[in-house]
Protein backbone atom coordinates (compact mmCIF):
# COMPACT_ATOMS: atom_id res chain seq x y z
CA UNK A 1 0.00 0.00 0.00
CA UNK A 2 2.70 2.43 1.15
CA UNK A 3 5.04 1.49 -1.66
CA UNK A 4 2.30 1.82 -4.23
CA UNK A 5 1.54 5.36 -3.15
CA UNK A 6 5.23 6.37 -3.35
CA UNK A 7 5.51 4.98 -6.83
CA UNK A 8 2.57 6.96 -8.17
CA UNK A 9 3.90 10.14 -6.61
CA UNK A 10 7.49 9.81 -7.84
CA UNK A 11 9.08 10.80 -11.15
CA UNK A 12 9.38 7.78 -13.42
CA UNK A 13 12.68 6.15 -12.35
CA UNK A 14 14.53 3.60 -14.50
CA UNK A 15 13.18 0.79 -12.30
CA UNK A 16 9.55 1.88 -12.93
CA UNK A 17 8.73 -1.26 -14.91
CA UNK A 18 9.86 -3.63 -12.17
CA UNK A 19 8.09 -1.53 -9.53
CA UNK A 20 4.82 -1.68 -11.46
CA UNK A 21 5.34 -5.42 -11.55
CA UNK A 22 5.85 -5.50 -7.80
CA UNK A 23 2.72 -3.43 -7.33
CA UNK A 24 0.75 -5.84 -9.45
CA UNK A 25 1.98 -8.74 -7.34
CA UNK A 26 1.04 -6.84 -4.18
CA UNK A 27 -2.45 -6.16 -5.48
CA UNK A 28 -2.77 -9.85 -6.24
CA UNK A 29 -1.43 -11.41 -3.06
CA UNK A 30 -2.00 -8.51 -0.63
CA UNK A 31 0.45 -6.17 1.08
CA UNK A 32 0.00 -7.01 4.76
CA UNK A 33 0.67 -10.43 6.36
CA UNK A 34 -3.09 -10.71 7.09
CA UNK A 35 -4.01 -10.14 3.46
CA UNK A 36 -1.37 -12.65 2.33
CA UNK A 37 -2.79 -15.21 4.77
CA UNK A 38 -6.22 -14.76 3.20
CA UNK A 39 -4.70 -15.19 -0.27
CA UNK A 40 -2.92 -18.35 0.88
CA UNK A 41 -6.17 -19.67 2.38
CA UNK A 42 -7.92 -18.92 -0.89
CA UNK A 43 -5.28 -20.77 -2.92
CA UNK A 44 -5.34 -23.80 -0.62
CA UNK A 45 -9.14 -23.85 -0.73
CA UNK A 46 -9.11 -23.64 -4.52
CA UNK A 47 -6.67 -26.54 -4.89
CA UNK A 48 -8.53 -28.65 -2.31
CA UNK A 49 -11.82 -27.92 -4.05
CA UNK A 50 -10.46 -29.15 -7.39
CA UNK A 51 -9.19 -32.34 -5.72
CA UNK A 52 -12.54 -32.80 -3.95
CA UNK A 53 -14.51 -32.41 -7.14
CA UNK A 54 -12.24 -34.94 -8.84
CA UNK A 55 -12.59 -37.34 -5.89
CA UNK A 56 -16.37 -37.01 -5.81
CA UNK A 57 -16.98 -37.32 -9.52
CA UNK A 58 -14.23 -39.77 -10.47
CA UNK A 59 -12.50 -41.49 -7.56
CA UNK A 60 -15.42 -42.36 -5.28
CA UNK A 61 -17.04 -45.72 -6.05
CA UNK A 62 -20.48 -45.86 -7.65
CA UNK A 63 -23.11 -46.81 -5.09
CA UNK A 64 -24.67 -50.21 -5.79
CA UNK A 65 -28.23 -49.23 -4.89
CA UNK A 66 -28.36 -45.54 -5.73
CA UNK A 67 -25.91 -45.31 -8.61
CA UNK A 68 -24.56 -41.97 -9.81
CA UNK A 69 -27.00 -39.69 -7.93
CA UNK A 70 -25.39 -40.87 -4.70
CA UNK A 71 -22.41 -38.64 -5.53
CA UNK A 72 -24.42 -35.61 -4.44
CA UNK A 73 -24.14 -37.05 -0.93
CA UNK A 74 -20.48 -35.96 -0.84
CA UNK A 75 -21.55 -32.36 -1.45
CA UNK A 76 -24.70 -32.42 0.64
CA UNK A 77 -23.29 -33.73 3.92
CA UNK A 78 -20.31 -31.32 4.14
CA UNK A 79 -22.49 -28.34 3.21
CA UNK A 80 -25.03 -29.34 5.88
CA UNK A 81 -22.22 -29.70 8.41
CA UNK A 82 -20.99 -26.20 7.57
CA UNK A 83 -24.56 -24.88 8.00
CA UNK A 84 -24.70 -26.03 11.60
CA UNK A 85 -21.13 -24.90 12.24
CA UNK A 86 -22.03 -21.43 10.95
CA UNK A 87 -25.03 -21.08 13.22
CA UNK A 88 -23.08 -22.38 16.16
CA UNK A 89 -20.62 -19.54 15.48
CA UNK A 90 -23.52 -17.06 15.28
CA UNK A 91 -24.67 -18.31 18.68
CA UNK A 92 -21.24 -18.14 20.32
CA UNK A 93 -20.45 -14.72 18.82
CA UNK A 94 -23.86 -13.38 19.92
CA UNK A 95 -23.31 -14.54 23.50
CA UNK A 96 -19.80 -13.06 23.42
CA UNK A 97 -21.14 -9.76 22.06
CA UNK A 98 -23.75 -9.40 24.80
CA UNK A 99 -21.13 -10.29 27.37
CA UNK A 100 -18.11 -8.26 26.19
CA UNK A 101 -19.83 -5.57 24.06
CA UNK A 102 -17.01 -5.71 21.54
CA UNK A 103 -18.28 -4.90 18.06
CA UNK A 104 -15.86 -7.39 16.53
CA UNK A 105 -18.04 -10.18 17.95
CA UNK A 106 -21.01 -8.53 16.27
CA UNK A 107 -19.20 -8.51 12.89
CA UNK A 108 -18.34 -12.17 13.43
CA UNK A 109 -21.98 -13.08 14.17
CA UNK A 110 -23.22 -11.20 11.14
CA UNK A 111 -20.57 -12.64 8.84
CA UNK A 112 -21.30 -16.20 10.01
CA UNK A 113 -25.04 -15.63 9.53
CA UNK A 114 -24.55 -14.33 5.98
CA UNK A 115 -22.32 -17.21 4.92
CA UNK A 116 -24.41 -19.71 6.86
CA UNK A 117 -27.61 -18.65 5.13
CA UNK A 118 -26.01 -19.36 1.75
CA UNK A 119 -24.86 -22.78 2.91
CA UNK A 120 -28.34 -23.51 4.31
CA UNK A 121 -29.83 -22.67 0.93
CA UNK A 122 -27.34 -24.99 -0.79
CA UNK A 123 -28.12 -27.72 1.79
CA UNK A 124 -31.81 -27.46 1.01
CA UNK A 125 -31.23 -27.47 -2.77
CA UNK A 126 -28.79 -30.40 -2.84
CA UNK A 127 -30.95 -32.34 -0.40
CA UNK A 128 -34.00 -31.72 -2.50
CA UNK A 129 -32.22 -32.88 -5.68
CA UNK A 130 -31.00 -36.02 -3.97
CA UNK A 131 -34.44 -36.67 -2.49
CA UNK A 132 -36.02 -36.33 -5.94
CA UNK A 133 -33.81 -39.05 -7.41
CA UNK A 134 -33.84 -41.40 -4.41
CA UNK A 135 -37.17 -40.85 -2.65
CA UNK A 136 -39.00 -39.75 -5.79
CA UNK A 137 -40.09 -36.50 -4.15
CA UNK A 138 -38.55 -33.04 -3.93
CA UNK A 139 -39.65 -32.56 -0.37
CA UNK A 140 -40.85 -34.56 2.62
CA UNK A 141 -41.60 -33.35 6.15
CA UNK A 142 -38.87 -35.39 7.70
CA UNK A 143 -37.52 -33.87 10.98
CA UNK A 144 -34.14 -33.05 9.52
CA UNK A 145 -35.55 -31.40 6.41
CA UNK A 146 -38.15 -29.49 8.37
CA UNK A 147 -35.65 -28.29 10.96
CA UNK A 148 -33.24 -27.13 8.25
CA UNK A 149 -36.05 -25.22 6.55
CA UNK A 150 -37.05 -23.54 9.82
CA UNK A 151 -33.39 -22.74 10.45
CA UNK A 152 -33.27 -21.07 7.04
CA UNK A 153 -36.34 -18.97 7.90
CA UNK A 154 -34.85 -17.94 11.25
CA UNK A 155 -31.58 -16.78 9.74
CA UNK A 156 -33.11 -15.04 6.75
CA UNK A 157 -35.20 -13.22 9.37
CA UNK A 158 -31.96 -12.47 11.22
CA UNK A 159 -30.43 -10.90 8.11
CA UNK A 160 -33.62 -8.91 7.47
CA UNK A 161 -33.54 -7.66 11.04
CA UNK A 162 -29.93 -6.58 10.54
CA UNK A 163 -30.71 -4.72 7.37
CA UNK A 164 -33.69 -2.94 8.98
CA UNK A 165 -31.85 -1.84 12.11
CA UNK A 166 -28.67 -0.54 10.48
CA UNK A 167 -25.38 -0.48 12.32
CA UNK A 168 -26.60 0.65 15.72
CA UNK A 169 -25.81 -0.69 19.16
CA UNK A 170 -29.47 -1.50 19.75
CA UNK A 171 -29.63 -3.30 16.42
CA UNK A 172 -26.59 -5.37 17.32
CA UNK A 173 -28.08 -6.30 20.69
CA UNK A 174 -31.44 -7.22 19.17
CA UNK A 175 -29.74 -9.36 16.53
CA UNK A 176 -27.60 -11.05 19.18
CA UNK A 177 -30.75 -11.97 21.10
CA UNK A 178 -32.24 -13.43 17.93
CA UNK A 179 -28.99 -15.31 17.23
CA UNK A 180 -29.21 -16.91 20.68
CA UNK A 181 -32.97 -17.59 20.79
CA UNK A 182 -32.91 -18.92 17.22
CA UNK A 183 -30.11 -21.34 17.99
CA UNK A 184 -31.80 -22.60 21.16
CA UNK A 185 -34.99 -23.09 19.15
CA UNK A 186 -33.37 -25.50 16.68
CA UNK A 187 -33.19 -28.63 18.91
CA UNK A 188 -36.71 -27.89 20.21
CA UNK A 189 -37.95 -27.72 16.63
CA UNK A 190 -36.21 -30.97 15.83
CA UNK A 191 -37.75 -32.75 18.82
CA UNK A 192 -41.24 -31.44 18.20
CA UNK A 193 -41.14 -32.38 14.52
CA UNK A 194 -39.80 -35.83 15.44
CA UNK A 195 -42.70 -36.38 17.83
CA UNK A 196 -45.14 -34.88 15.36
CA UNK A 197 -44.06 -37.52 12.84
CA UNK A 198 -43.59 -40.20 15.48
CA UNK A 199 -45.96 -42.61 13.72
CA UNK A 200 -43.88 -42.54 10.56
CA UNK A 201 -40.88 -44.82 10.35
CA UNK A 202 -37.53 -43.03 10.25
CA UNK A 203 -35.96 -43.25 6.82
CA UNK A 204 -32.23 -43.68 6.54
CA UNK A 205 -30.83 -44.14 3.09
CA UNK A 206 -27.20 -43.90 3.98
CA UNK A 207 -25.98 -47.27 5.20
CA UNK A 208 -23.46 -47.13 7.98
CA UNK A 209 -20.07 -48.49 7.05
CA UNK A 210 -19.01 -46.77 3.85
CA UNK A 211 -16.11 -48.36 1.94
CA UNK A 212 -12.72 -46.79 2.55
CA UNK A 213 -12.58 -44.75 -0.66
CA UNK A 214 -16.08 -43.37 -0.05
CA UNK A 215 -15.29 -42.50 3.56
CA UNK A 216 -12.03 -40.88 2.45
CA UNK A 217 -13.85 -38.80 -0.14
CA UNK A 218 -16.41 -37.71 2.45
CA UNK A 219 -13.73 -36.75 4.97
CA UNK A 220 -11.77 -34.78 2.41
CA UNK A 221 -14.92 -33.07 1.20
CA UNK A 222 -15.79 -32.14 4.79
CA UNK A 223 -12.31 -30.66 5.17
CA UNK A 224 -12.55 -28.69 1.91
CA UNK A 225 -15.97 -27.26 2.61
CA UNK A 226 -14.86 -26.23 6.09
CA UNK A 227 -11.90 -24.45 4.45
CA UNK A 228 -14.24 -22.76 1.99
CA UNK A 229 -16.46 -21.69 4.86
CA UNK A 230 -13.50 -20.23 6.79
CA UNK A 231 -12.38 -18.31 3.72
CA UNK A 232 -15.85 -16.86 3.13
CA UNK A 233 -16.22 -16.11 6.84
CA UNK A 234 -12.94 -14.18 6.90
CA UNK A 235 -13.92 -12.21 3.81
CA UNK A 236 -17.42 -11.46 5.12
CA UNK A 237 -15.91 -10.41 8.45
CA UNK A 238 -13.47 -8.06 6.74
CA UNK A 239 -16.34 -6.62 4.73
CA UNK A 240 -18.22 -5.93 7.97
CA UNK A 241 -15.15 -4.19 9.39
CA UNK A 242 -14.62 -2.08 6.29
CA UNK A 243 -18.29 -1.14 6.02
CA UNK A 244 -18.42 -0.09 9.66
CA UNK A 245 -15.30 1.99 9.13
CA UNK A 246 -16.78 3.56 6.01
CA UNK A 247 -19.97 4.45 7.86
CA UNK A 248 -17.99 6.06 10.65
CA UNK A 249 -15.98 8.10 8.13
CA UNK A 250 -19.16 9.16 6.36
CA UNK A 251 -20.64 10.19 9.69
CA UNK A 252 -17.54 12.29 10.42
CA UNK A 253 -17.60 13.89 6.99
CA UNK A 254 -21.29 14.78 7.25
CA UNK A 255 -21.42 15.79 10.90
Amino acid sequence: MQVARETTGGVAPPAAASQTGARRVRTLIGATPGERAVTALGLVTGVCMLVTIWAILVAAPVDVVQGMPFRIFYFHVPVAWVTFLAFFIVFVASVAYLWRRDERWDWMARAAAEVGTIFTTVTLITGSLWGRTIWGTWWTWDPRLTTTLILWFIYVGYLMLRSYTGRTASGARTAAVLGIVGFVDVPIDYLSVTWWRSLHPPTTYVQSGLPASAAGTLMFSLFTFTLLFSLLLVLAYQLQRVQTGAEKLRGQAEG
Partner: protein
Amino acid sequence: MSDTNMTRMTTRVNTTEISPPGVGGDGALGTASAFARQVMAIVAKDLRSELRTKQTWSAMALFALLVLVVFNFAFDLRVENTAAVAPGVLWVAFVFASILGLGRTVAAEHDQGPLDRLLLCPVNRTVVYFAKLIGNVLFIGVVEVVAVPIFAIIYNVPVALGGLVPVVVLGTIGVAAVGTLFAAMAANTRARELLLPVLIFPLLVPVVIAAVRATSALIVPVARDAPWVGLLAAFDVIFLSISAVAFEYVVED
Protein backbone atom coordinates in the same frame (compact mmCIF):
# COMPACT_ATOMS: atom_id res chain seq x y z
CA MET B 1 -53.31 -11.45 58.01
CA SER B 2 -53.62 -8.87 60.79
CA ASP B 3 -54.03 -5.23 60.11
CA THR B 4 -50.62 -4.16 61.41
CA ASN B 5 -48.95 -6.88 59.41
CA MET B 6 -50.69 -5.60 56.30
CA THR B 7 -49.57 -2.04 56.92
CA ARG B 8 -45.98 -3.10 57.41
CA MET B 9 -46.06 -5.06 54.19
CA THR B 10 -47.44 -2.12 52.28
CA THR B 11 -44.80 0.26 53.53
CA ARG B 12 -42.09 -2.17 52.65
CA VAL B 13 -43.51 -2.55 49.19
CA ASN B 14 -43.59 1.18 48.72
CA THR B 15 -39.95 1.62 49.64
CA THR B 16 -39.01 -1.10 47.19
CA GLU B 17 -40.99 0.57 44.48
CA ILE B 18 -39.18 3.87 44.63
CA SER B 19 -35.70 2.52 45.23
CA PRO B 20 -33.58 1.55 42.22
CA PRO B 21 -33.60 -2.10 41.14
CA GLY B 22 -31.38 -4.32 43.17
CA VAL B 23 -31.29 -1.94 46.13
CA GLY B 24 -34.73 -2.68 47.55
CA GLY B 25 -35.84 -6.15 48.46
CA ASP B 26 -35.38 -6.82 52.12
CA GLY B 27 -36.19 -10.50 52.25
CA ALA B 28 -37.51 -12.80 49.56
CA LEU B 29 -41.16 -12.23 50.46
CA GLY B 30 -40.85 -8.47 50.21
CA THR B 31 -39.09 -8.72 46.86
CA ALA B 32 -41.63 -11.15 45.46
CA SER B 33 -44.63 -9.12 46.51
CA ALA B 34 -43.02 -5.91 45.30
CA PHE B 35 -42.37 -7.60 41.96
CA ALA B 36 -45.99 -8.71 41.73
CA ARG B 37 -47.27 -5.24 42.65
CA GLN B 38 -45.07 -3.54 40.07
CA VAL B 39 -46.14 -6.01 37.41
CA MET B 40 -49.81 -5.57 38.24
CA ALA B 41 -49.48 -1.78 38.20
CA ILE B 42 -48.25 -1.84 34.60
CA VAL B 43 -50.84 -4.46 33.58
CA ALA B 44 -53.59 -2.32 35.12
CA LYS B 45 -52.33 0.70 33.20
CA ASP B 46 -52.37 -1.21 29.90
CA LEU B 47 -55.83 -2.64 30.57
CA ARG B 48 -57.19 0.77 31.49
CA SER B 49 -55.92 2.32 28.31
CA GLU B 50 -57.26 -0.56 26.22
CA LEU B 51 -60.67 -0.47 27.95
CA ARG B 52 -61.03 3.17 26.94
CA THR B 53 -60.93 2.40 23.24
CA LYS B 54 -61.17 -1.41 22.91
CA GLN B 55 -59.58 -0.92 19.47
CA THR B 56 -57.02 -3.69 19.75
CA TRP B 57 -59.39 -6.27 21.20
CA SER B 58 -62.12 -5.68 18.69
CA ALA B 59 -59.70 -5.80 15.75
CA MET B 60 -58.03 -8.96 17.02
CA ALA B 61 -61.33 -10.76 17.67
CA LEU B 62 -62.79 -9.73 14.33
CA PHE B 63 -59.64 -10.86 12.55
CA ALA B 64 -59.69 -14.25 14.30
CA LEU B 65 -63.30 -14.75 13.24
CA LEU B 66 -62.45 -13.78 9.67
CA VAL B 67 -59.63 -16.33 9.60
CA LEU B 68 -62.06 -19.01 10.80
CA VAL B 69 -64.54 -18.09 8.08
CA VAL B 70 -61.94 -17.86 5.30
CA PHE B 71 -60.45 -21.25 6.14
CA ASN B 72 -63.92 -22.70 6.06
CA PHE B 73 -64.10 -21.76 2.36
CA ALA B 74 -60.45 -22.53 1.65
CA PHE B 75 -60.66 -26.13 2.88
CA ASP B 76 -64.19 -26.80 1.63
CA LEU B 77 -65.05 -28.43 4.94
CA ARG B 78 -67.21 -31.51 5.08
CA VAL B 79 -68.04 -33.87 7.89
CA GLU B 80 -65.19 -36.25 7.10
CA ASN B 81 -62.31 -33.75 7.01
CA THR B 82 -63.42 -31.31 9.72
CA ALA B 83 -61.79 -33.14 12.63
CA ALA B 84 -58.44 -33.21 10.80
CA VAL B 85 -58.46 -29.54 9.76
CA ALA B 86 -60.29 -27.75 12.60
CA PRO B 87 -57.55 -27.75 15.31
CA GLY B 88 -55.02 -26.29 12.88
CA VAL B 89 -57.47 -23.62 11.77
CA LEU B 90 -58.22 -22.67 15.37
CA TRP B 91 -54.55 -22.20 16.19
CA VAL B 92 -53.72 -20.36 13.00
CA ALA B 93 -56.56 -17.97 13.85
CA PHE B 94 -55.20 -17.52 17.39
CA VAL B 95 -51.62 -16.98 16.24
CA PHE B 96 -52.58 -14.52 13.48
CA ALA B 97 -54.75 -12.52 15.87
CA SER B 98 -51.98 -12.63 18.49
CA ILE B 99 -49.46 -11.16 16.08
CA LEU B 100 -51.87 -8.36 15.27
CA GLY B 101 -52.22 -7.61 18.98
CA LEU B 102 -48.55 -8.12 19.90
CA GLY B 103 -47.52 -5.61 17.27
CA ARG B 104 -50.02 -3.12 18.66
CA THR B 105 -49.22 -3.35 22.36
CA VAL B 106 -45.55 -2.54 22.00
CA ALA B 107 -46.06 -0.27 18.99
CA ALA B 108 -48.57 1.79 20.96
CA GLU B 109 -45.91 2.23 23.61
CA HIS B 110 -43.45 3.46 21.02
CA ASP B 111 -45.80 5.83 19.20
CA GLN B 112 -46.84 7.62 22.34
CA GLY B 113 -43.43 7.33 23.87
CA PRO B 114 -44.33 5.63 27.12
CA LEU B 115 -42.04 2.63 26.63
CA ASP B 116 -39.18 5.01 27.30
CA ARG B 117 -41.10 6.42 30.23
CA LEU B 118 -41.85 2.91 31.42
CA LEU B 119 -38.16 2.12 31.27
CA LEU B 120 -37.40 5.25 33.26
CA CYS B 121 -39.51 3.86 36.11
CA PRO B 122 -37.36 2.49 38.89
CA VAL B 123 -38.43 -1.06 38.11
CA ASN B 124 -36.53 -4.04 36.84
CA ARG B 125 -36.71 -4.77 33.09
CA THR B 126 -38.01 -8.21 33.98
CA VAL B 127 -41.00 -6.51 35.62
CA VAL B 128 -41.74 -4.76 32.33
CA TYR B 129 -41.42 -8.05 30.47
CA PHE B 130 -43.81 -9.93 32.74
CA ALA B 131 -46.27 -7.04 32.76
CA LYS B 132 -46.34 -6.92 28.96
CA LEU B 133 -46.56 -10.71 28.86
CA ILE B 134 -49.58 -10.81 31.18
CA GLY B 135 -51.18 -8.00 29.22
CA ASN B 136 -50.68 -9.92 25.98
CA VAL B 137 -52.02 -13.16 27.49
CA LEU B 138 -55.14 -11.28 28.62
CA PHE B 139 -55.58 -9.62 25.22
CA ILE B 140 -55.27 -12.93 23.38
CA GLY B 141 -57.45 -14.58 26.03
CA VAL B 142 -60.31 -12.18 25.32
CA VAL B 143 -60.08 -13.09 21.64
CA GLU B 144 -60.09 -16.80 22.47
CA VAL B 145 -63.13 -16.49 24.71
CA VAL B 146 -64.98 -14.95 21.77
CA ALA B 147 -63.56 -17.24 19.09
CA VAL B 148 -63.87 -20.70 20.68
CA PRO B 149 -67.70 -20.81 20.91
CA ILE B 150 -68.04 -19.48 17.36
CA PHE B 151 -65.44 -21.99 16.20
CA ALA B 152 -67.42 -24.80 17.84
CA ILE B 153 -70.58 -23.62 16.11
CA ILE B 154 -69.38 -22.95 12.57
CA TYR B 155 -67.07 -25.97 12.42
CA ASN B 156 -69.59 -28.15 14.20
CA VAL B 157 -66.91 -29.66 16.43
CA PRO B 158 -67.73 -30.96 19.92
CA VAL B 159 -65.50 -28.93 22.22
CA ALA B 160 -64.73 -30.46 25.62
CA LEU B 161 -64.04 -27.28 27.55
CA GLY B 162 -62.40 -29.08 30.48
CA GLY B 163 -59.69 -30.40 28.19
CA LEU B 164 -59.47 -27.41 25.89
CA VAL B 165 -58.93 -24.73 28.55
CA PRO B 166 -55.49 -25.97 29.74
CA VAL B 167 -54.32 -26.45 26.16
CA VAL B 168 -55.45 -22.96 25.15
CA VAL B 169 -53.94 -21.37 28.25
CA LEU B 170 -50.59 -23.12 27.80
CA GLY B 171 -50.51 -22.41 24.07
CA THR B 172 -51.35 -18.76 24.64
CA ILE B 173 -48.60 -18.40 27.23
CA GLY B 174 -46.13 -19.91 24.75
CA VAL B 175 -47.19 -17.55 21.95
CA ALA B 176 -47.15 -14.54 24.25
CA ALA B 177 -43.79 -15.45 25.85
CA VAL B 178 -42.00 -15.43 22.50
CA GLY B 179 -44.26 -12.72 21.12
CA THR B 180 -43.59 -10.16 23.85
CA LEU B 181 -39.85 -10.49 23.33
CA PHE B 182 -40.11 -10.33 19.55
CA ALA B 183 -42.51 -7.41 19.57
CA ALA B 184 -39.92 -5.48 21.57
CA MET B 185 -37.22 -6.61 19.12
CA ALA B 186 -39.23 -5.59 16.07
CA ALA B 187 -40.04 -2.26 17.73
CA ASN B 188 -36.31 -1.45 17.59
CA THR B 189 -36.48 -1.40 13.79
CA ARG B 190 -37.96 0.82 11.13
CA ALA B 191 -40.31 -1.83 9.76
CA ARG B 192 -41.80 -3.53 12.78
CA GLU B 193 -45.12 -4.53 11.20
CA LEU B 194 -43.22 -6.36 8.47
CA LEU B 195 -40.62 -7.89 10.67
CA LEU B 196 -42.67 -9.23 13.59
CA PRO B 197 -44.49 -12.03 11.70
CA VAL B 198 -41.36 -12.94 9.73
CA LEU B 199 -39.31 -13.33 12.89
CA ILE B 200 -41.92 -14.91 15.11
CA PHE B 201 -43.43 -17.70 12.99
CA PRO B 202 -40.31 -19.90 12.74
CA LEU B 203 -39.80 -19.64 16.49
CA LEU B 204 -43.40 -20.55 17.23
CA VAL B 205 -43.30 -23.83 15.29
CA PRO B 206 -42.84 -26.08 18.37
CA VAL B 207 -45.63 -24.32 20.28
CA VAL B 208 -47.99 -24.48 17.31
CA ILE B 209 -47.28 -28.17 16.66
CA ALA B 210 -47.80 -29.10 20.31
CA ALA B 211 -50.96 -26.99 20.66
CA VAL B 212 -52.53 -28.31 17.47
CA ARG B 213 -51.77 -31.92 18.32
CA ALA B 214 -53.08 -31.52 21.87
CA THR B 215 -56.27 -29.94 20.51
CA SER B 216 -56.84 -32.62 17.89
CA ALA B 217 -56.30 -35.32 20.52
CA LEU B 218 -59.29 -33.78 22.30
CA ILE B 219 -61.49 -34.15 19.22
CA VAL B 220 -60.25 -37.52 18.01
CA PRO B 221 -58.18 -39.37 20.64
CA VAL B 222 -54.96 -40.82 19.24
CA ALA B 223 -53.39 -43.97 20.65
CA ARG B 224 -49.65 -43.83 21.41
CA ASP B 225 -49.33 -40.10 20.91
CA ALA B 226 -46.64 -37.95 22.47
CA PRO B 227 -47.71 -36.22 25.74
CA TRP B 228 -48.42 -32.95 23.96
CA VAL B 229 -49.86 -31.02 26.91
CA GLY B 230 -46.77 -31.79 28.97
CA LEU B 231 -44.51 -30.86 26.08
CA LEU B 232 -46.41 -27.61 25.62
CA ALA B 233 -45.83 -26.81 29.28
CA ALA B 234 -42.13 -27.63 28.86
CA PHE B 235 -41.85 -25.37 25.77
CA ASP B 236 -43.56 -22.59 27.76
CA VAL B 237 -41.01 -22.90 30.56
CA ILE B 238 -38.08 -22.85 28.11
CA PHE B 239 -39.37 -19.90 26.06
CA LEU B 240 -40.45 -17.96 29.15
CA SER B 241 -37.07 -18.25 30.82
CA ILE B 242 -35.05 -17.39 27.69
CA SER B 243 -37.32 -14.47 26.80
CA ALA B 244 -37.38 -13.06 30.33
CA VAL B 245 -33.58 -12.99 30.39
CA ALA B 246 -33.20 -11.75 26.80
CA PHE B 247 -35.77 -8.94 27.12
CA GLU B 248 -33.35 -6.94 29.22
CA TYR B 249 -30.86 -6.78 26.32
CA VAL B 250 -33.50 -5.82 23.78
CA VAL B 251 -34.91 -2.79 25.60
CA GLU B 252 -31.67 -1.65 27.19
CA ASP B 253 -30.65 1.91 26.34
